[in-house]
């Protein structure tokens, strides 16, 4: 194992927040990958068994249709993580490439790319998504993630451009230019490593943003309705329990909120550690 990797893990281990975040994320990934293999979710309605309290048979009780809440969370985690990770990846690639090219190239390229970026920042997403919903049929999580990313890359592109404007005049970049190295090489081999901590944090934030936004797209009809998606579970819980008006449904209502909260908290903790591990200036 290289020295860098060892140092990375040591930093992560020393940072208690980051370590706990990493453990929680690992648990969620384990849940998403292996959970559905270990237990079967039966979504058949059992109305008499609705809103049951937690028990050995139903760890987090049951929902408004008598279905197991915990198993819904387990099955939903695959959906949630898939959408979150793909959307974050697309956001990152789009945001970095557009921001970096814009900042590095400057001139007309910068003007055009920033015009497009500003357009995406200012055009309200709702009416555009309505049109997209009428035109596009989402058939897989990748396409779903791409549409989510289409409205989240712009702030990142602007931020990357700003970072790049400061980096490109540093001595080591000027040296690269004098040496005649090509732009893609400079961007990906010299600049990208300097932006890694920033991008890593954005990756995590984009993932959690996409999970929340995915519910909105489902409710627009852009994507098929997934009742085990955590965000959708919250929506269904509020709709069927009236939020706070059905005390029997509190556990069902709180469970996906807790799960989503825990996931977001883990992401934030983990990204905090990532920054420390990847940004040499923060290491003591």
């Amino acid at each position, binding site marked *: 194992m290289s020295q860098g990797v060892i140092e990375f893990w040591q930093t992560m281990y020393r940072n208690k927040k980051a370590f706990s975040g990493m453990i929680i994320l690992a648990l969620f990934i384990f849940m998403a990958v292996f959970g559905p293999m270990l237990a079967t979710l039966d*979504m*058949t*309605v059992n*109305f008499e068994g*609705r*809103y049951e309290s937690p028990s050995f048979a139903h760890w987090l009780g049951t929902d*408004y*249709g008598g279905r197991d809440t915990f198993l819904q969370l387990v099955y939903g985690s695959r959906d949630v993580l898939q959408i979150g990770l793909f959307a974050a990846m697309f956001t990152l690639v789009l945001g970095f490439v557009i921001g970096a090219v814009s900042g590095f190239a400057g001139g007309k390229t910068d003007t055009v790319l920033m015009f497009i970026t500003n357009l995406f920042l200012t055009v309200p997403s709702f009416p555009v998504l*309505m049109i997209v*919903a*009428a035109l596009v049929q989402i058939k897989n999580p990748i396409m779903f993630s791409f549409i989510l990313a289409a409205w989240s890359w712009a702030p990142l592109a602007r931020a990357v451009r700003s970072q790049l404007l400061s980096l490109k005049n540093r001595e080591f970049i000027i040296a690269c230019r004098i040496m005649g190295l090509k732009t893609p090489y400079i961007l990906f081999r010299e600049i990208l490593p300097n932006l890694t901590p920033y991008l890593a944090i954005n990756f995590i934030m984009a993932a959690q943003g996409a999970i929340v936004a995915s519910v909105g797209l*489902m*409710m*627009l*009809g852009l*994507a*098929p*309705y997934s*009742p085990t998606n955590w965000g959708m579970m919250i929506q*269904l819980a*509020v*709709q*069927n*329990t*009236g*939020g*706070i*008006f*059905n*005390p*029997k*449904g509190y556990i069902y209502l709180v469970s996906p909120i807790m799960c989503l909260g825990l996931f977001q908290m883990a992401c934030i903790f983990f990204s905090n550690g990532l920054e420390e591990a990847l940004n040499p200036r923060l290491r003591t």
Partner: protein
Amino acid sequence: MNLLSRHKRISSLCLSALLPALMIVSGCGSSAPDLVDRLNAGNVQDMRQPIPDAQIMYNKDKIFRILGGWPKPPLYQGNPFGSGGIGDNNTRYMYEGLFYFIRSMNNVYNRLAESSEDNELTTTVHLQRNVKWHDGEPFTSKDVWAYYRLNNGAEVTKYLTSIDTPDDYTVVFHWRNPAPYPELRKLLLAQDLQGEIPYHLYKKYVDKADALLKEAKPLTDKSKDGPFNLDITDDLSKQMALNWNEFTRSGPATPVGTGPYKFEKVTTTDMLLDKNEDYWRPDAVHFDKIWIKNVPELSAQYALVKAGKLDWYDGTPPKDILDSLLKQNKDILHYRMYDPASVGLMYNIRNKPFDNVKFRQAMTYVLDKTKLREIGNYYGQEYPKISMTGIMPSSLDKEVDASVLNQMTDYTTNLEKAAQLLNEIGWKKGSDGNWRDPNGKVPSFIIGAPNNWAPGVNSAQIAAEQFTKFGIPTKLKAVDSTIYFANADKGQYDMSMDWVDISWGFQNAWSSMRVLFWQGTKTKVGFPNVKKKDANGNEVDTGKLDLKLKGIDGKVYDIDQEMKRYPYVQDEQERRELIANLAWIANENCWGVNFFQNATGAWLNTKTMSGDFPMMDQIVPYNRDMPIATDPEEQLAITHLNHGFNSSYMPEEYWPR
């Protein structure tokens, strides 16, 4: 200094101990006996009749608080036909018609009509004499005439030849020959609010429309429709549309009707209506103001009900929420009633394999309607035997003879039957549990539903799960309602959710069949239309239904002709046979599934409002959660409390308390 601060501390301690005690004591003192307490104590005077102002305890300002929606200012305008209208439910407080009807029960009452009489080809209506528009002008027969000359797309005009106004207070409707049967004539008139187009405000547009109608020639082709039996050419139609569009943009800024309440003011969240002091039935109006709140979020609506901030609320939430609200606010009284509408799914017969009746029937056999109803609307009523008949299921026994009902295919859940039908059309079940079509492909179907319709979305999700579990992978798309209906009408989904077996207007079997064969269900199912060639040889869709199917007697019927024939059939038995045949055809062809007939409710805040509550002897035993009435008189009384099933307003039904 220290002493002073110690004194201060002691006094503040005393005060903090005293304050909660005072609050508790004052709270106890002001707590009023709840509805059950009052009924147990026999304290029911204010439930028999309105009480004098001096005795009003909880609603001294005499305000009736409800929910509603309207175009937000500055878009708000006073023309009910203008863009967005004047608000969905608000029309009924400010406008009136000659008659009004109870949507679920077909009772028709006089309103602006004092009386009416039918002759063979005429209906003469005598108007109330002391009716004034909100701007003080008298309401006369000219206004009724103006309503139909301008709004000549109103359905009843297809059955009329002319409208005469022999004097200011008499209107004579002349029917085409043959005329619709007498009961239908009144229902056709009762579905309009004739007091919506004051002639003195819209003279310019009414006279223009009248002049255009006078240019039209009488219809010679009996199979065609036209207002007042006139043949409206394309050119005339364009001019009329232009005139209508100008009318809808002509204002006024605030509504002018004849109803019991006048518009006072509107904001984004609130609308205030003021009692019409010139109202022609002054004794019928007991509230001074109506305060309408615009609260779209369901949870916020429940919060208002719970807090007693609404006096009347329409709808029935999921069972556990309903139980919880009744438990938390002991002044609430909730009446349930059947809705003349069912939640259902329609197959898109434009898409394969839904064009195959056996496939549709197989899908229908898969569904367990009890589970769909439990999740969609617990208090609804499922009818497992039928697919979709075009008739409100609760009146199927009344409308269709038992001999016909017995010949209808029974679609009660039957997975073996579903498998057998699929096998018959070449489908095979794979080792993974999924069915494959004759080409070996596993299907993947989409059910579309409007996202803001909880009963539809919830039950459709269960249906998708039932299909998937059976081996036909199906997903639900809950689509934003602003685009859903256009998408569904264009056939974008394999299956679409909407109200089915419903009558939006008066309730008779033909009315709900119109929705099936001519309106919303038709477009979602995708029934074919008659096509014809235009002058250039291009194929043109006429919009006229092209559906010829075998009836119960084995003969082939043109459905469009049968539907058009119905209003003119004078013999009741013949009408019953016609309807029974169409219901049988609909059930056998299985174009959709009636999941369950909806149940809705009226919530009454008995602390601030009172009324002559029906089934009063059952309020205590049922602890204010009233069951669906079985006695027709009680059913009617409950629909009165629910504003004629949310289609009218009966100010005399409630009073402040």
